[in-house]
């Protein structure tokens, strides 16, 4: 697949000038005809094989964001300019990960990325290297990784291929993360047939540092050395970047599939990289640093050079190899894992190399920063690349893809769930409750999350199944951060604009439910093909929705990732904007867990319950139905709810809080009862239909358990701020009892809720 395989002479810059008509495999490398013409125009000649390799990977959808860029701009343009979120922002979009001030001199960096296609091809290694990649983004900012989370989407739970993909993905996340010593504190697992050929494996990492330790990726200072350190470069993942983001792995002409060579990760090497990188940072040895992910050295050299002031020269033949037969093009494209690139002042190089040696990390000076503005790469003394790095890294093609509201959207929205038969009698409501809590999407996920180490490092305060994961940052003051991820593809399919806002609303609510103040957002936007106007419309709408909602809630987007082409043939996945929200809590001992722990606590439902079943879990479980409108979002109400939940936590009024979302009140009640091992007696509020009360998915709601001694103070606060609060019952007994309707013993509830995933995958 390497461009060089077409000619055995080294394709130097000089050779390219002398053989202008030589045919290059630009098409096979994923470039379009006009893009190749543009490369020729930029260079004023044909590219060499090595230059073509670089342009093709860096101009791929995956690296260049060429279809999404025009829409992503909104996250900057609409970014909130005032409020706690805006004030806390230290590093925004464009760097390897955003950085947020969390007080007491600490800063937190966090980011979510996709590793979808690799995880479908080879689930274990795909998911494992997904964790590895996001962790390197975090350490490249100068932060110590402290937690990971994995939002996952799979095909139908009972489909045979899900039995291949899910156990591999889960084992890969656990295997890599556990070896690395990183707690996995949450995420999501969602099943839907739309993800059958395109599972979504997103990975989020959180890192902590002091303000003065923030580092940016740039190569400044003429004469500074470029050091490649970490694993040796091998033939894995070559061309992955360009082919990763292509529509399909099968070649249409029936030739061998363009299957990306899978990368195998080594978490122990990654652990050494973390320690080695942080020690070099703390010794103040580093000018700029960049991890090698998609597009490998092509990306690292061109991005470092274009973010710096000068140019860069690289001696490619000095790169340590695992396989000595690799061609220069292959070395430039290789996606071998666990590698990083640092820019170091000449007098500090020896010290840097000593640190690498101490950690048994291979490190090699491969080049230096020059005073020109060219990126020049040499192979045994001959120049094989001579480009303006900005044209490779930042000035790739930008597409205004045509988009159009699909013609089926109206029919989908008109397919109102109001017509679906509903349970009415107590017996029917009981059966519907059991069917809901045992359905794969609503069932306990402990079979999966128990395979992850959630408590290593000793700072995990809350982990799955809590509303958000929470990590203690400072042992003396109790300062901590909470992170939640959410993204309901069913809602987004019904209305991508509202779906993206709903994803933010839920994630924001989940953070606030634990008592943390939401500050900032990272997003992973998983969509179908940008060349399909319908999928592109979904993407454009979701970006607009998320940017608007972030502005309204005052939570800026700090960074993230776009994954397009999640599509098999005509069938795209549901538009799935996964939104991660980071919040701060001044003292983690004040956190609010979800469990009903003590009998006698009063259960309040905050917010208003309306008849909203479009995209609901009930409509899926009971009728396999998807239609109508998603629940309405009222972000002012979400902000108010968050303030109430945070105050209740800070002032010790609430013993438990749990967000009401997928599955409605009955799902939230079941989870809080099971987590605490205590039952609840619930009364359906006057004027509400029992079915609507239990199963509706109206937003802006939460369950709160209040000690009797705090009741007046709590209800006064809600009344003063205009928050509807209804007392719906009391924590009591060994059963979930909906008075006058049905009673579910906790044993039975637990059996149904917890047996589903082990039954399918155990």
């Amino acid at each position, binding site marked *: 697949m390497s461009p060089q395989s077409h000619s055995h002479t080294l394709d130097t810059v000089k050779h390219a000038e002398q053989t202008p008509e030589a045919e290059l495999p630009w098409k096979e490398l994923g470039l379009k005809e006009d893009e190749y013409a543009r490369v020729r125009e930029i260079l004023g000649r044909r590219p060499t094989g090595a230059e073509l390799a670089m342009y093709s990977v860096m101009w791929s959808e995956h690296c260049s964001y060429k279809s999404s860029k025009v829409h992503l701009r909104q996250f900057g343009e609409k970014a909130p300019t005032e409020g706690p979120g805006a004030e806390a922002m230290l590093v925004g979009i464009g760097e390897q990960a955003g950085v947020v001030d969390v007080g007491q001199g600490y800063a937190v960096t966090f980011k979510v990325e996709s590793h979808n296609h690799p995880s479908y*091809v*080879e689930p274990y*290694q795909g998911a494992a290297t997904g964790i590895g990649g996001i962790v390197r983004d975090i350490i490249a900012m100068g932060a110590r990784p402290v937690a990971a989370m994995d939002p996952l989407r799979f095909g139908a739970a009972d489909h045979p291929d899900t039995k291949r993909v899910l156990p591999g993905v889960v084992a890969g996340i656990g295997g890599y993360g556990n070896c690395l010593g990183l707690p996995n504190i949450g995420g999501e697992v969602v099943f839907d047939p739309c993800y059958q050929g395109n599972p979504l494996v997103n990975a989020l990492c959180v890192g902590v540092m002091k303000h003065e330790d923030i580092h940016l990726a740039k190569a400044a200072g003429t004469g500074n050395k470029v050091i490649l350190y970490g*694993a040796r470069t*091998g*033939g*894995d993942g070559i061309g992955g970047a360009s082919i990763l983001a292509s529509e399909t792995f099968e070649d249409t002409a029936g030739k061998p599939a363009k*299957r990306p*060579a*899978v*990368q*195998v*990760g*080594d978490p*122990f*090497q990654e652990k050494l990289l973390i320690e080695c990188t942080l020690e070099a940072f703390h010794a103040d040895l580093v000018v700029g640093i960049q991890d090698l992910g998609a597009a490998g050295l092509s990306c690292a050299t061109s991005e470092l050079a274009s973010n710096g002031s000068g140019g860069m020269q690289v001696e490619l033949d000095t790169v340590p190899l*695992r*396989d000595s037969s690799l061609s220069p093009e292959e070395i430039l494209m290789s996606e*071998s*894992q666990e590698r990083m690139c640092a820019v170091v002042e000449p007098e500090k190089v020896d010290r840097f190399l000593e640190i690498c040696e101490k950690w*048994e990390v291979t490190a090699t000076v491969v080049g230096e920063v020059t005073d020109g503005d060219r990126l020049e790469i040499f192979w045994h003394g001959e120049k094989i690349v001579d480009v303006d790095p900005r044209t490779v890294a930042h000035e790739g093609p930008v597409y205004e893809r045509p988009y159009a509201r699909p013609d089926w959207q109206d029919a989908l929205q008109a397919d109102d769930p109001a017509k679906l038969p509903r349970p009415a009698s107590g017996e029917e409501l009981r059966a519907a409750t059991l069917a809901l809590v045992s359905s794969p999407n609503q069932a306990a996920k402990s079979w999966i999350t128990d395979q992850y180490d959630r408590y290593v490092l000793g700072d995990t305060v809350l982990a799955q199944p809590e509303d958000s994961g929470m990590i203690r940052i400072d042992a003396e003051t109790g300062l901590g951060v909470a992170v939640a991820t959410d993204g309901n593809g069913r809602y987004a399919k019904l209305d991508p604009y509202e779906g993206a806002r709903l994803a933010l609303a839920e994630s924001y609510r989940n953070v606030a439910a634990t008592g943390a103040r939401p500050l900032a957002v990272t997003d992973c936007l998983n969509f179908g093909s940008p060349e399909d106007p319908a999928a592109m419309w979904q993407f454009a709408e979701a970006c607009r929705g998320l940017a608007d909602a972030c502005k309204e809630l005052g939570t800026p987007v700090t960074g993230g990732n776009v994954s397009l082409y999640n599509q098999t043939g005509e069938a795209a996945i549901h538009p799935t904007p996964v939104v991660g929200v980071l919040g701060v809590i001044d003292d983690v001992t004040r956190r609010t867990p979800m469990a009903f722990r003590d009998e006698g606590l009063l259960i309040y439902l905050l917010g208003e319950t309306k008849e909203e079943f479009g995209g609901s879990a009930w409509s899926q479980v009971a009728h396999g139905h998807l239609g109508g409108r998603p629940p309405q979002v009222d972000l002012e109400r979400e902000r108010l709810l968050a303030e109430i939940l945070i105050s209740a936590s800070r002032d010790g009024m609430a013993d438990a809080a749990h967000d009401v979302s997928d599955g409605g009140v009955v799902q939230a009640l079941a989870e809080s009862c099971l987590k605490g091992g205590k039952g609840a007696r619930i009364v359906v509020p006057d004027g509400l239909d029992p079915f609507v009360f239990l199963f509706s998915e109206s937003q802006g709601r939460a369950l709160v358990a209040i000690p009797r001694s705090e009741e007046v103070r709590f209800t006064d606060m809600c009344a003063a701020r205009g928050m509807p609060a209804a007392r719906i019952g009391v924590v009591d007994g060994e059963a979930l009892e909906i008075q006058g309707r049905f009673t579910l013993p906790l044993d039975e509830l637990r059996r149904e809720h917890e047996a589903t995933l082990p039954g399918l995958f155990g």
Partner: protein
Amino acid sequence: MARVVVDVMLKPEILDPQGQAVQRALPRLGFEGVSDVRQGKRFELEVEGPVDGDALARIHELAETFLANTVIEDFTVRVQDADGNERPVEAGTDAASEGAVA
């Protein structure tokens, strides 16, 4: 009864962290002169009845679908006779082909 041996190795371009760990340990233990180590798996299958084309085809299938992960691994199939002599599977049958080219 005959024994069929299936050897499974990571493909050459795939990183082998275990092999690397062994290779790094060798000089520490005083064993010099080994420049690379790759570690694989060997399966010895005791087969009932004659090891004919059909049996080998079945073994090839089970190796391809279960013993090896052909996305990242290659495998070879060999037959061992009663004296312990090994012979590679004859060319010309499907089962003779190596996993790498399957």
